[in-house]
């Protein structure tokens, strides 16, 4: 029975139920509970099934959004999941961590008058259904092409590249520096946003279709790119090594005990499981008063993690809430969790006691300038300073690209920020047979962009292996100030 557009527009947003804040800050369980089939079907009814869906254009990998939503509405979540998997190999992860508010949900026409369709929630629902009902059918793997590809890194980029190459019949080995796969999905994004089982399960799916994993191998150290392309007999290499060089502010006192980069803090807790200390023996020194510097996704994750470890937590950010780069949903969830917010506070010094342990953080109070030509308001100092007590400080300022691979192989060209330079159309690097994607070529962006790039790269690797890709003229920038890859609505472009 057809429902009119007007009726569809009249259905209010079905809010995804959340665990109660007072309770959830005492554990690491996932915050949103997920839709029931009924809730999902109601939410799916809000979709107008546009002829020219704006949402799809907002999605970096172009998922058939109205298509899968229609299947949910019809009560066929397993088929919806299958549809998503056609374009996105990690729906359970993406449904949970993608910045839908800036991508598919931003242009959704329903959003022009009220709330857009909660596409992320529906994607998550379909993926969870598929997992809990075991309806996933592995894709057919064609006969082996006899070509071997090495994938460096098992983050979203590496996993996607592995999948795309394997379904084209190539042999794939993923090399991972750590002892388990998943990249930032494991050692960055917290358990209360992304349960570990989801990642492990997707890795298992890859293993089931014949992708091999080699853990504890650092490419660049244990094996060089030349080794891979030479004596190890690989025909191509995909670099998905991510951005893993923490930024600090360079302010006095930064090396005091109790000052961490977000990477160290989150890695200790989530990869090394110090949240289960002392059974797991990696220690974490976590104070009563934790100061978190930065208000991006990483900042939110650190804030909410510290809260769950029982600390009194404050966020320091030099601009205001409106400029906070975090995903809206994350910021909202964080705001429900009894944290303190110091907007317009710029840390200038960290003060330690005689044993080098942090005791205070000194900030300059800022104000915003008039918008400049680009429309951005700059924070400017007011000359007023405050001293706050703190015994742990976490810098959540993002990352630069890890230099291990470029330092070990000079043929792979990077710009002055260490970002690997690639041809925007083919993801070829300056070294023959080597491709790259993900945070390594953007300098830190999102899961879905990393996946999108990996998918495009895999397509050109496939061409390369078939001898259809010309290596004479890849368009790899030579200017050391050339920007990395960036997503601008519809195309991957250059940033900075």
């Amino acid at each position, binding site marked *: 029975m057809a429902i009119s557009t007007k009726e569809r527009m009249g259905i209010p947003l079905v809010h995804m139920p959340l665990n109660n804040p007072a309770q959830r800050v005492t554990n690491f369980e996932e915050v949103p509970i997920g839709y029931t089939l009924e809730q999902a079907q109601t939410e799916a009814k809000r979709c107008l099934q546009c002829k020219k869906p704006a949402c799809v254009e907002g999605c970096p990998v172009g998922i058939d959004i109205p298509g899968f939503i229609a299947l949910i509405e019809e009560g066929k979540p397993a088929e919806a999941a299958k549809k998503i998997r056609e374009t996105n190999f990690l729906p359970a992860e993406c449904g949970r961590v993608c910045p839908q508010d800036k991508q598919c949900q931003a242009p959704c026409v329903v959003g022009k008058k009220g709330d857009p369709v909660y596409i992320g929630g529906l994607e998550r629902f379909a993926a969870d259904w598929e997992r809990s009902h*075991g309806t996933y059918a592995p894709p057919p793997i064609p006969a082996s092409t006899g070509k071997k590809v090495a994938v460096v890194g098992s983050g979203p980029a590496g996993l996607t590249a592995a999948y795309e190459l394997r379904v084209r019949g190539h042999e794939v*080995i993923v*090399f991972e*520096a*750590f*002892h*388990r796969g998943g990249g930032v999905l494991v050692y960055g994004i917290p358990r209360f946003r992304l349960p570990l089982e989801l990642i492990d399960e997707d890795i298992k799916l890859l*293993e089931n279709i*014949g*992708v*091999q*994993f*080699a*853990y*504890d*191998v*650092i490419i660049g*150290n*244990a*094996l060089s790119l030349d080794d891979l392309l030479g004596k190890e007999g690989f025909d191509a290499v995909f670099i998905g090594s991510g951005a*893993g*060089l*923490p930024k*600090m502010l*360079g302010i006095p006192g*930064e*090396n005091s*005990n*109790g000052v*961490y*980069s977000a*990477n*160290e803090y989150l*890695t*200790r807790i989530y990869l*090394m*499981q110090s949240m289960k*200390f*002392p*059974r*797991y*023996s*990696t*220690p*974490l*020194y976590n104070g009563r008063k934790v100061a978190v510097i930065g208000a991006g996704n990483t900042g939110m994750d650190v804030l909410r993690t510290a809260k769950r470890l029982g600390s009194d937590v404050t966020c320091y950010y030099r601009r205001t809430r409106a400029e906070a780069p975090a995903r809206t949903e994350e910021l909202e969830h964080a705001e429900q969790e009894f944290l303190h917010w110091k907007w317009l506070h710029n840390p200038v010094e960290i003060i330690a006691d005689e*044993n*080098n342990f942090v005791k205070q953080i000194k900030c300059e109070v800022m104000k915003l300038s008039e918008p400049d030509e680009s429309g951005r308001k700059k924070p400017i100092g007011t000359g007023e300073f405050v001293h706050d007590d703190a015994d742990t400080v976490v810098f959540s300022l993002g990352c630069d690209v*890890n*230099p*291990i691979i470029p330092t070990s192989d000079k043929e792979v060209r990077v710009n002055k920020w260490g970002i690997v330079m690639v041809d925007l159309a083919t993801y070829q690097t300056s070294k023959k047979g080597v491709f790259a994607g993900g945070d390594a070529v953007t300098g830190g962006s999102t899961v879905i962009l990393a996946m999108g790039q990996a998918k495009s790269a895999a397509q050109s690797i496939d061409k390369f292996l078939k001898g259809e890709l010309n290596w004479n003229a890849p368009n790899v920038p030579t200017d050391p100030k050339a920007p990395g890859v960036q997503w601008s609505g519809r195309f991957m472009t250059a940033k900075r």
Partner: protein
Amino acid sequence: MLVVQILLKTGKFILECVLGGCNYEPIPEFQTVTKNTKAIVEQINIDNEESIAVALAQAEKLADLSGEDKAVLAAALSTLFYHDNHGRPGMIKLAGKAEAIIGKLGMDVVPFLISELVNADSESAAHFGRAVARNGKPAVKAVLQAIDANRKEDYAVINLLTALSYFTDSEAISAMPEILVAAKSANHRVRAEALEASAGLAKRLDATLFDEKLRLKMYDIASSALGDQQPIVRHFAVHSIGEMVKKGLLDGELKGKAAKAFSGILGIDGNNNWDNGFIVRHEAEKYVGLFKQAGSAKNKYHQSFRILEKRELCPDTYYFTIEAPLTAAKIQAGQFIIIRPSEFAERIPLSICGWNRDKGTINIIVMAAGRTSREMTNLSVGSCFADVVGPLGTRSHVKKHEGTCVVIGGGYGTGAVIPTARDLAALGNRVIGIVGARNEKLLLMVPELKEVCAEVMLTTNDGSAGIKGFVIHALEEILKRGEKISHVLAVGPVPMMMAVAAMTKPLGIETYVSLNAVMVDGTGMCGSCRVIVGGETKFACFHGPDFDGHKVDFEQLMKRQKMFVAKEKEALAFSEN
């Protein structure tokens, strides 16, 4: 033997007199019990941690005890085993200390301990068992005899099995047949305890003691016990299999079977047939991580990280040969590796003291400093580390120098400088090695260093070998004899490296030191290893570990090394429980 036993019984009787303040005249022959012993006995009786601690400290100092003294002391100290120490961590520690002291009294008191053991409650039995187990080989025999004598008494057998599980002496392997028989007892408590003993020995004894047949038998019995009616038996069956896996006693097929069984117990194999005993699942959860790598698709890049050789260099310090072909193929002098010994462990950085590229092996020296390094030194030949990652860091600075090159090592650092010394010598440099330690016994890797140096000088703080003093005194010696030094590399404790750098700085001698900052990933990803060199923040794992010693902020390094001290103590205490 019988005489001693009677003596002991009477010892206990006298003790009761002392404790109860009774008026009996002591039997004449016991007047030889010394005053010291009597004082200790009296003090033990005061139920107060401080006075017990004092008494134990005194008891520890006693030497050359007579039979009577030993008897009275064993009887008195063992009263601590009967205290209800629940929720009194201090008392539990003291009881542990008492175990050690009684254990040292030797075989004389073992019959007494066994006679108490067979009737003790389970907690006291553990204390008695550990005290007995400290006597090694002869005590194994004594316990086995006692089992034989008490075959009909399940209660006694259970406690005797408890004692068996604590032995670290290789003789204990002779108890395995008895244990495996008990594992099929009609009494479920006996079955459980036997499985626990089998687990204990798998954990404590060297892997090479378990031959193929025994391993198979142990596995068979434990795996059929996974289907036992009683959850407690299944719990210990899991424990037993888990310890075997941990020790590397099961490989290939059996390990695969164990992995399957454990995921079934936990309900993670998708068959919805998990064990409904909570204690069973909980136990399985502890070990399931051990199977992670075994489950993932194997390929030629999968490394076993098996321990091929283990040798004690000096107390608490071991030399290991490990299978790690990818690292072995690439490692260079000055680089290091990171090891995570088990699923639950921390990643810790370790230097390399040698390698064999053809065999795919690397050599390391581990000093048991805390929980993780101790966990490593507890593993035996044949077992595997969970992860070994490397090579990490940059190689040492080697080139041809005009004057002499000096490499200085303290502790594990002596091993660490060997590859660099070899490289320096290969370029035609004259290389002198200096090794420093507190005393002669702690000097290690000297013969190996001699192989690659033109000369090796030793220094000890107490003068028991070489020059009395510190490594810098040896350095002075070289300068005094008019030799020109162009290059120094020092690896070891921070104070040593600091002293070397302070000495060479005014002389303008190029000096490198290897910084042992606290690390996590070792690839430049986390920033945990931040050090200050020449006023700039550097990552020791990526930019180092070798840095210009004249520019390093050692103060800051030492303070940062203490960042986790409180937690490290907690971690160690947890693992010892």
